[in-house]
Each structure stands twice: as C-alpha cells, then as structure tokens.
C-alpha cells in the first residue's frame, strides 16, 4: 500500500495495551460522575483546592485572568478522566489492526460525527434556557461515546455475521 496512506492509518493510534488502561480510566470517571451527581448530589468536599486558571469568572465577581483560584475540582477531574480514558479506548490499536479494522474505524468516526451533529441540531432547536447548558455539557462527550459504541458494535457484528466454523 501507498506509504502515505499507511502512515495516515496508523500514525494516530496508540499501542493496544492503552485500551485496557483507557477502559479503567473511563470506569473511574464514570464512578466519580455517578457518585457526585446521583449519590451525594454535589461536589466532593475534599476536592476543593486552589488551582491555576487562565480565565475564571465567579458569580458577582470580576473575571480573573492567569490567577490561582479556589475551586472544587470534582467536575474538572471527571471530565479530564473521561476525555483521556475515552481517547485511549478510541485511539488504541486492536490486537490485530488490519485494513478492514481501519475501515471500520473510519466508518465509525464518520458515523459518530454525523449522528452527534444531528443530535445537537435537534437539541438546539428544542431545548432552551438553563437546560441548554446541560445539552452543551453532555455534548462535549457524545462524539467519543457514540464512536466507542459504534466501533465495538461493528467489530462484534462482523465477528458474527454468517459465522460457521
């Protein structure tokens, strides 16, 4: 195959072992999310700390730039872990990463990008006010979620269609 094409297909992928690490990080992030949103219904107290921020605007205060601020890192941590874990899972090579798997990967990227934006369009039209904030927050993660689900669904599907020994 053309050298440039091979580089394009393999360049952005991590070794296979990153995948299980990614799942673990995703699991930690998910536990944090469930714990803070559904169990204690708020931020985890001991994660309140001072941190460096580029821009920070608190309610009824002036916007601060490049300052060390006091804040709670629960959602920061949950989001960071989700993105890192999700990227590890999405961008790790399979045990055997052949041309068909590369194709499934690209098809899944295309699919998740499209579905994500159709979903966003729909929510843009029908959700207003503070609830739209929630749409924006969850939409940060939907491309990754949709990709991971669709790619693994395709892997499963092609393992099983018309399979006989």
């Amino acid at each position, binding site marked *: *195959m053309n050298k440039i094409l091979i580089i394009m297909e393999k360049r952005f992928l991590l070794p296979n072992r990153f995948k299980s690490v990614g799942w673990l990080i995703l699991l930690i992030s998910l536990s944090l999310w469930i714990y803070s949103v559904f169990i204690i219904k708020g931020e985890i107290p001991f994660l309140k700390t001072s941190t460096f921020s580029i821009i920070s605007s608190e309610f009824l205060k002036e916007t601060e730039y490049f300052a060390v601020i006091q804040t709670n890192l629960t959602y920061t941590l949950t989001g960071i872990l989700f993105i890192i874990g999700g990227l590890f899972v999405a961008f790790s090579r399979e045990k055997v990463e052949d*041309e*068909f*798997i590369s*194709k499934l990967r690209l098809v899944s990227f295309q699919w998740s990008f499209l579905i994500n934006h159709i979903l966003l369009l729909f929510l843009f039209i029908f959700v207003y006010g503070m609830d739209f904030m929630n749409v924006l927050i969850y939409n940060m993660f939907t491309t990754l979620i949709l990709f991971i689900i669709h790619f693994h669904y395709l892997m499963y599907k*092609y393992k*099983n269609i018309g*399979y006989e020994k």
Partner: protein
Amino acid sequence: MKNNIKVQRAIKNITQEDLAKIISVTRQTINAMENNKYVPSTVLALKIAKYFGKNVEEIFELEDKD
C-alpha cells in the same frame, strides 16, 4: 466482486480463525470477505491467493455491477 474463499477454505479444511492468523488479519476481515461485505486490497487478495496456491482470478471474480 465475489470470491470463493469459503470453498477454498473447505478444500483445505481450515477455519476462519486459522486462515486469519496465517495471513495476519482479523477473523472479522475473513468473515466480511466471505459474506461479500468487504472488498480486500490488492495486497490482501494476493496474499490469500498465494496461501491457497492459486491465481487471484481463481478466487476473486468481478460481478456485473462492478
């Protein structure tokens, strides 16, 4: 494009899994090709033909719609 990989496999009495291992692809790839869901690259087609000791045309064949 259609192919007779399944037939060739039966003649050699080899599973999808073993064939996949021999030509270093996934079982998904073999399965997708056998079910006409995937047209392999020229490299892969040549590898398969080489393994079965045939010409590519004896395994892969153009269809009218191609």
